[in-house]
């Protein structure tokens, strides 16, 4: 009983905390200074159509590096907690139709994922979305084929080398441009606005993020769903 009263009090306090925020909330009609700078900089300096991509990869690039690190730590935690025990492999084959169909779809889903993260600077989407799509392709294989064995060394290789390359591309910025240019995309030619090979290193960095996210999440799915 007393616990219920405390829970009600806590929720009431939360509502009282939010009410003034809702009542006095004034919606802006125009972008703030920082956002306008980002939109203009994305058009004039970076040649990138998708402003969200340029914010994630360039203006907030260091945050994204930290975020990928958090993802890596969480994956390491999951892998540590769910270590594989030596169990007898249950061999229950799925039907021929399911196996063939899922292998056909697997290639198409991977292709869509690669399309999404290479076109991250032109259309909605990017490394995170493309990486998640690649993970869903592997999820399809896990669900459809019960006797699936991943090549874990390739997964490990992609995961570690994409992380290393991300930092190396950032360091190239310092080497080629200047002290304050970690993760600057201008190390490659900026190209024409709206073309695939434009926006400097942004497609390269976002592809690396896509591979990194895809391999991390595939490891999580494999650890949690594997027999």
């Amino acid at each position, binding site marked *: 009983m007393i616990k219920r009263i405390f829970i009600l009090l806590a929720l009431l306090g939360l509502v009282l905390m939010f009410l003034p925020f809702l009542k006095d909330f004034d919606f802006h009609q125009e972008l703030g200074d920082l956002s306008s700078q980002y939109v203009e900089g994305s058009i004039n300096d970076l040649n990138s159509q998708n402003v969200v991509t340029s914010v994630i990869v360039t203006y907030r690039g260091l945050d994204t590096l930290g975020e990928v690190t958090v993802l890596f730590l969480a994956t390491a935690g999951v892998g540590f907690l769910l270590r594989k025990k030596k169990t007898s492999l249950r061999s229950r084959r799925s039907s021929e139709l399911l196996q063939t169909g899922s292998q056909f779809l697997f290639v198409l889903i991977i292709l869509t994922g690669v399309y*999404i993260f290479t076109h991250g600077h032109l259309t909605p989407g990017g490394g995170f979305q493309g990486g*998640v799509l690649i993970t*869903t392709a592997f999820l399809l294989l896990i669900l459809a084929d019960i006797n699936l064995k991943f090549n874990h060394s390739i997964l490990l290789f992609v995961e570690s080398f994409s992380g290393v390359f991300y930092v190396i591309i950032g360091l190239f910025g310092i080497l080629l441009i200047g002290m304050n240019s970690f993760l600057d995309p201008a190390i490659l030619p900026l190209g024409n606005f709206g073309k695939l090979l434009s926006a400097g290193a942004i497609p390269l960095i976002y592809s690396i993020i896509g591979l990194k996210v895809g391999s991390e999440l595939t490891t999580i799915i494999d650890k949690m769903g594997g027999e």
Partner: protein
Amino acid sequence: MISIIIIVLGIIMILAAFLAIRLKNLLSAIISAGVISLLASVIYLLLAAPDVAMTEAAIGSGLTTIIFIFTLKKIRKGDLDD
């Protein structure tokens, strides 16, 4: 027009949230939580954030639901092993 769609989706989402918390059957609760994420991705699209909508549709309603179901499967399997 956008406000009407958001109100309708919001009512469904709040009902699904109550169901996700109150339902005794864990599988139904997990599916209700997935419904919340799926409708949230439609709301992001209406709020002019297509990047977030793509991420939420793939992660929130796809992978999160699957991870919950995998956990449930592992726990049920542990029960059978005894």
